């Protein structure tokens, strides 16, 4: 049941990305191009998504448990650390180079080009590199599970 619900959520999420134009790098890059012919679409997408999810998450927090799971898995980290800062900057540089972030990159696999497949493989390799680095770190930070994070 959990997988079926999750599939449906992915479908709705994908329709949202598609309708809003976020699967198209020119529209995303148009938002990031503040010195050029600026396209504010992404701000409207975020605005719509934030209003709905803020209200919806407030509702979710009042529920005793999710429908198909034992408990809610809210992110618990609160500290702004170097990893958050450096990681976000690196992610932003990569995002600005091509205009693809993970959601649209995966969704675009529906009509794949060689360029897109190479991008997605490089993205997965980048994630793997992070996981490999985590297993090699001797510090407490390195023992944290690689996936328990903000999203």
């Amino acid at each position, binding site marked *: 049941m959990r997988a079926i619900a999750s599939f449906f959520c992915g479908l709705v*999420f*994908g329709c949202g990305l*598609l309708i809003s134009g976020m699967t198209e790098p020119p529209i995303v890059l148009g938002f990031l191009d503040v010195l050029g012919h600026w396209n504010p679409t992404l701000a409207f997408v975020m605005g719509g998504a934030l209003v709905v999810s803020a209200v919806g998450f407030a509702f979710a927090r009042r529920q005793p448990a999710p*429908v198909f799971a034992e408990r809610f898995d809210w992110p618990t980290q609160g500290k702004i650390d170097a990893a958050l800062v450096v990681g*976000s900057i690196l992610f932003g540089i990569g995002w600005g180079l091509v205009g693809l972030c993970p959601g649209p990159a995966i969704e675009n696999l529906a009509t794949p080009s060689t360029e897109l497949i190479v991008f997605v493989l490089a993205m997965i390799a*980048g994630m793997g590199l992070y996981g490999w680095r985590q297993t090699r770190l001797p510090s407490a930070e390195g023992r944290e599970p690689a996936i328990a994070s903000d999203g």
Partner: protein
Amino acid sequence: MAAFDPVAGLLGGVLIGLASVMLMVLTGRIAGISGIVAGVVSSSRGERSWRLAFLAGLVGAPLIIGVLGGSFEPPPMPSNWGLIVVSGLLVGFGSRLGGGCTSGHGVCGIARLSRRSIVATGLFMAAAMIVVAIMRHGMGG
């Protein structure tokens, strides 16, 4: 040039928000795509199936839109292979190091008023805007 469409943007945004809320209410998970993708490889079997199902839905969405009469084409990409590989590596590594991407931090995190996510979103947007400014207006322009 890609057109500015506030209505489509808002409508799509509402669907993205709705999907994020549904994933939390139904399965108790945050709809952060970078975390979901990374978890397919690194998590246990029980944690893998819902992640694969979500990603299958994501890839399936264009087919639904296609049935409804919409169109979906391969995205325009740069022809420079080095640029594509570097961009993919940075998106993958950076989103994991930073704990999330546009969905996990930018939507779900800010909606929770998470300080981490607000800082992360500000940083990755600023970094991306600087990169685009350099690429489009800085080099020889």
